């Protein structure tokens, strides 16, 4: 290992000297080399928020990690995708990523590389996962790189490419948001709150009802012309204790991974894709919380309480997110009613209470 700051390359990188486009192009050439050198390069297409997205994999190594959470949105090949993301790792291709032209001092609190993001190029290295994410907004071209696909933390597979999607989708007025959503074609609700509040319990309780699932953990929200939510991932996180509330629920999942001793990552299986809506207009924001007793009920809650439950967890998980995202979410809580959803132990009541709200 080399101490930070003693690597080869520039001794220091001042913002004025940074050339984010040049590094992006260097990284892209490395991806193309990896694609040429490897058998099994492949492409997959997905429809996300009405946009056709192409994923170019330089090798098969990352396909089973990146695609499960997106498979419910899989689409036909298109010669003109709106966004292309080049996905690769060095271990399976034998092609290394060029050394970063920046130093340790350039890393921001959310992995942003100072000087390597501008109106056109965004660059982030996530210290938690070891993923380099880059996006060229002018060419609608993204790069997702990790040293070794086998060492990618598998919670990354629950919300793959989310940083690139966040940047690109916000350009198109869709805000990646930490929230669950359920509803029907006429409209639905956003479920917001931190881990353990009951978002996943609520979303999963609706699988066995006429309500459809849009998300458990992340979704895309737009406020114009009217509030609307789009599905992006079929995955979610759940405590094993919560799983016990749903006998037989394991059969709904295509894949389950243990995150920690008490928490798992799940993916809805193919036979439940019909239960997933690609999106719907948003009619209300609900703040679930677990309450003693049998019954589930709704009570109005202040807009600021909804914003507090919604905005910080969305913004702090997304590099580069700030004022603009906060304003979008503030606009959302002002435009639709907000309720506290007190969850009782009779889980059948949860979709009934939400349906009554939507039908009312």
């Amino acid at each position: 290992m080399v101490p930070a700051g003693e690597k080869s390359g520039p001794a220091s990188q001042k913002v004025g000297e940074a050339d984010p486009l040049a590094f992006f192009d260097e990284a892209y050439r490395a991806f193309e080399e990896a694609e040429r050198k490897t058998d099994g390069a492949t492409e997959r297409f997905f429809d996300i928020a009405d946009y056709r997205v192409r994923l170019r994999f330089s090798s098969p190594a990352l396909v089973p990690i990146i695609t499960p959470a997106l498979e419910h949105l899989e689409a036909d090949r298109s010669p003109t995708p709106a966004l292309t993301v080049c996905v690769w790792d060095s271990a399976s291709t034998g092609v290394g990523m060029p050394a970063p032209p920046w130093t340790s001092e350039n890393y921001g609190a959310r992995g942003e590389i100072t000087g390597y993001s501008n109106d056109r190029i965004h660059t982030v290295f996530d210290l938690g996962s070891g993923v380099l994410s880059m996006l060229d907004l002018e060419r609608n071209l993204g790069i997702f790189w990790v040293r070794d696909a086998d060492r990618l933390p598998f919670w990354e597979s629950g919300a793959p490419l989310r940083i690139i999607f966040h940047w690109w989708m916000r350009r198109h007025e869709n805000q990646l948001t930490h929230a669950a959503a359920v509803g029907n074609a006429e409209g639905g609700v956003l479920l917001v709150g931190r881990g353990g509040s009951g978002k996943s319990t609520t979303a999963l309780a609706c699988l066995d009802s006429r309500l459809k699932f849009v998300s458990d953990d992340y979704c895309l929200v737009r406020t114009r012309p009217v509030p609307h939510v789009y599905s992006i991932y079929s995955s979610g996180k759940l405590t094993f204790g919560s799983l016990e509330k749903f006998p037989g629920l394991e059969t709904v999942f295509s894949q389950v991974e243990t995150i920690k001793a008490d928490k798992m990552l799940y993916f809805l299986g193919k036979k439940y894709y019909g239960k997933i809506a690609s999106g719907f207009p948003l009619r209300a924001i609900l703040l679930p919380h677990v309450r003693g007793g049998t019954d589930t009920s709704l009570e109005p809650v202040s807009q600021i309480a909804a914003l507090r439950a919604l905005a910080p967890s969305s913004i702090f998980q997304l590099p580069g997110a700030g004022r603009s995202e906060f304003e979008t979410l503030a606009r959302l809580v002002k435009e639709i009613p907000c309720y506290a959803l007190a969850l009782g132990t009779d889980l059948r009541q949860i979709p009934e209470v939400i349906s009554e709200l939507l039908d009312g």
Partner: protein
Amino acid sequence: MGSLSRFKINEQQVIQETIEGEAVIVNLVSGNYYSLDKVGADVWGNIENGKSVEEILEVIPRLYRGDPAVMETSVKSLIDDLVKEDLIVPDASADEGSPQSPAASTAETQAVEEFEAPVLKKYSDMQDLLLLDPIHEVDEGGWPNVKPDRDDEG
């Protein structure tokens, strides 16, 4: 509190919204976020509107009933907290006079609510999502070592 008596929101690192008399404030650098209501939200709104501390201390007794000395101590204490949390900073344009703002119209307002000492509620549960320590090691290729698994938000 220091000698400067006018502050402004630290817009370099703070985003905030006030709705229906309650404020939520996010410090993008520290990872903390905050809420203020009632007196606290009024103080925050007056700071946002460019009022000096002295002007705020004139406005609050017109909005709330209570002991003026307690009000002054409580409001100054809140302002100290806002400074400590880097949510407000001294206003370098302090000598240029106070801009006119909606708060000026409170001069004729009848105090109807009992004063309660404002509290800056602080939430620190998002800090795990930020890299607050410097990077110590990189690999041979110059890329940082991945830090141990974190407690991901769920």
